[in-house]
């Protein structure tokens, strides 16, 4: 409400300013300043305003950054996310440096070289040495960034071929998500959109033996330190699996399967403690415009420790209707991975 009042006040202020300017204009006109030529007074004022803007702007930038950086996502809850964050930090240093140097030069020069009728501009059409230097420096810096960036990228994307991962399917449709666990065999049963019906929302092929132990859930549970391969599909339009706390995003595209490999590294409980917020939950958002309720299309994500995970998994029913009965360690690969 206060902001709204602020808004109205600002509007009135603007209108008042516009009025005042008109009046100033008319008086200038009457007092004989009879052209739109730029005067020395204009130059001094506008030049100085450039400097003022630089100062105020820098304060605004620093203040906003300080004030709002607390909202930035917390430390990454996945292993590869840590590498992404490191790369990001290097980039921050780089771009803030460039930002401050160039903006300061720009506005300081804009102030310093404002018009002065006793002076003439210097005729400097080029300077090959300088131009060479400022071409070669960005080239080297960017070369470094390319190499560093691609190293991280390759590490993240090559991991898809790891054989030790637990496979989980994420399936998007207007406007919700379903997860399908591959069960004991760690192989998802085949699926086909022609088989979709009310009882079989993902179109899983019930004749495929691999499908028998598949488990469908509406809440994504991940096991801590468990290499996980997301296998992603969509039913109707493009959606996107976005799990910002894990630095993870991959589109869900009708007609094809996409993948993302990652290792969750902080449990929900630990993260709650970190953030001092016992209501915190990880979340999966849809991040590709997909229709009217796009902005509500989400799924809760929970990272469990070994025991919590086993307990949760025990409660789930597999695709052919029987509960995952026996053990505390329903997925055999996970035993390998947790060593």
């Amino acid at each position, binding site marked *: 409400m206060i902001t709204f009042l602020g808004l109205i006040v600002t509007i009135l202020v603007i209108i008042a300013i516009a009025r005042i300017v008109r009046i100033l204009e008319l008086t200038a006109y009457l007092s004989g300043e009879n052209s739109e030529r730029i005067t020395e007074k204009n130059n001094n004022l506008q030049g100085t305003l450039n400097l003022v803007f630089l100062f105020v702007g820098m304060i605004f930038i620093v203040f906003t950054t300080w004030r709002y950086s607390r909202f930035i996502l917390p430390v990454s809850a996945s292993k590869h996310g840590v590498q992404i964050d490191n790369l990001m930090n290097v980039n921050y240093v780089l771009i803030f440096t460039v930002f401050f140097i160039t903006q300061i030069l720009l506005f300081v020069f804009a102030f310093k070289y404002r018009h002065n009728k006793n002076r003439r501009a210097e005729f400097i059409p080029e300077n090959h040495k300088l131009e060479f230097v400022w071409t070669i420096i960005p080239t080297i810096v960017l070369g470094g960034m390319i190499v560093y960036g691609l190293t991280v990228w390759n590490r993240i994307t090559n991991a898809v071929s790891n054989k030790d991962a637990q496979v989980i399917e994420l399936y998007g449709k207007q406007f919700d998500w379903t997860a399908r666990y591959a069960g004991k065999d760690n192989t998802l049963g085949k699926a086909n959109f022609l088989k979709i019906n009310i009882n079989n929302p993902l179109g899983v092929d019930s004749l495929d033996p691999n499908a028998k132990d598949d488990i469908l859930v509406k809440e994504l549970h991940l096991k801590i330190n468990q290499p996980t391969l997301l296998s992603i599909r969509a039913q109707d339009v493009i959606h996107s699996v976005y799990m910002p706390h894990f630095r993870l*995003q991959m589109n869900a595209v009708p007609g094809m399967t996409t993948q993302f490999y990652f290792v969750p590294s902080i449990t929900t409980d630990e993260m709650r403690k970190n953030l001092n917020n016992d209501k915190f939950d990880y979340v999966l958002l849809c991040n590709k415009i997909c229709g009217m309720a796009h902005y509500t299309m989400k799924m809760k994500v929970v990272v469990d420790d070994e025991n919590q995970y086993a307990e949760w998994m025990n409660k789930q029913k597999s695709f052919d209707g029987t509960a995952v009965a026996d053990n505390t360690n329903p997925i055999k690969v996970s035993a390998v991975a947790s060593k």
Partner: protein
Amino acid sequence: MENQAHVINGHDAHGHDDHHEQSFWTKYVFSQDHKMISKQFLVTAIVMALLAMLMSMTFRLQLGWPDNKFPFLEKIWGHWAKGGKLDPTFYLSLVTIHGTIMVFFVLTGGLSGTFSNLLIPLQIGARDMASGFLNMLSYWFFFGSCCVMTISVLLPDGAASGGWTIYPPLSALPQAIGGSGIGMTLWLVSMVLFIGSALLGGINYVVTVVNLRTKGMSMTRLPLTIWAFTITAILGILSFPVLFAAALLLVFDRSFGTSFYLSDIFINGVALDHHGGSPILFQHLFWFLGHPEVYIVLLPALGITSEVIATQSRKPIFGYKAMIGSMLVIAFLSFVVWGHHMFVTGMNPFLGSVFVFTTLLVAIPSAVKVFNYIATIFKGNLVYSPALLFAIGLVSFFISGGITGIILGDSALDINIHDTYFVVAHFHIVMGSSAIFGMFAGVYHWFPRMFGRMMNKTLGYWHFWITLICVYGVFFPMHFLGLAGVPRRYYANTAYDQFDQLVNINSVISVFAMVAGLAQVIFVANFFYSMFRGRKAEQNPWNSNTLEWTAPVEHLHGNWPGEIPTVYRWPYDYSKPGAAEDFIPQTVPFSQTESSNAAGMH
């Protein structure tokens, strides 16, 4: 057409102004004169820009105060804002049409259409465009396309609402979202008209620059504006046909049951009979236009900035050849970076690496341009016209928005910020605001050339400072929303507890947005007031070197009453040591400037 041919040949100096009377219709409406067409583009673009701005202010209200109701919205948008609450589907329509209008109608049609038309013939010394008739068609295609797009907002099912990128299947299936019905059809019709306009205009610009330069106007004596407009036109000619192809295939999928982009879709209880298509194909085609498009938007603004900064600094543009070179490199690279919009589509990661490489390379010529601008101001003697302020503002935005491009172009980082508000912040600053500021700079600078009158400078200053502050106020904080994980194209963030803490940022942004919007009232008032009541302009109000200021203030058909002037030098002989004045127009031969020739003949 016949006397058009005369006009083009131009060397015969008979009076072009008097020998055919023009009716109201041929003079103001179906005009074939580049100067009139330029004004038509500008006024149309201003109207469209106001419309798009109104849309953005509407959805900023929604985003800033998601729990409030604004009854006056119902007055504007009718049943889409029942009781003052914006409908979520209509929100998406507004975002889509806002983006489309801004990118295509304001900053492509509006910017290139206005300034390429005005300046190409006047700055190269031509009587008119190569084909006045095609030029006229180009405007009327543009006008038609604006009308169709505007009408689509009034449809009962809503306008296109899949985002300005219209990715299928969402854009292909009316059952997926209301706006994908007739709304999308009109969007496509409008875009086809627009592509027609862009191609007719583009071919005309290139042909004119290549063939109709006056005597002495070699390519290396062209002002940087003309280089920028020409390169832009070439980009358009090479990329718009690809958008046309993409749109055409989409029309087939929508209306004739083909499966170019559609496969394995089950929607509303029905399995659709589409097999083997790929939605990703559309994205490749779209971004093959889409990325060059951002340079189609930006390069003319950079060209205008070069010209304005040099003139108002009373100093040659620093590194003229480097400026041309970097524009050419940027233009070339813009065709091989489109995949940076698709890092998380499941595209082959190796292909992704290639696009990272090419994308980050773009930063080099961009940096060179920034350094050249700063070096031009260095030791200049800056005359603070509103145009110069806007040009400086552009450079500031180009830096602020360009550096975040380094982050977005890095695929590993893009994983987490793709499609978030970080992207919205990035492209609004580097493309939206830069190009708009370039356009403002152009309007303030060439207004006397267009309308023979001056714009009020004091209002110009106010307009500049309020807008500059508000642009940073709106878009800088958006980076933090993105880094907090807020997706773009969300009607509200209320479904996520983690975003509750961001409500305040959103309100602050919205306040800045409203003030920015209101500041444009100052501009519009100034523009139309000055058009009729502004003070009469002198022939060369900025003491500029370029040819357009050698033509009389009153517009003549054919531009110059007598012979077209001959050009003897480059356009940037400002403050040449030894010269009497601080500028030497391009039409002054070296034989008349003995005292200053030692400083180099360009």
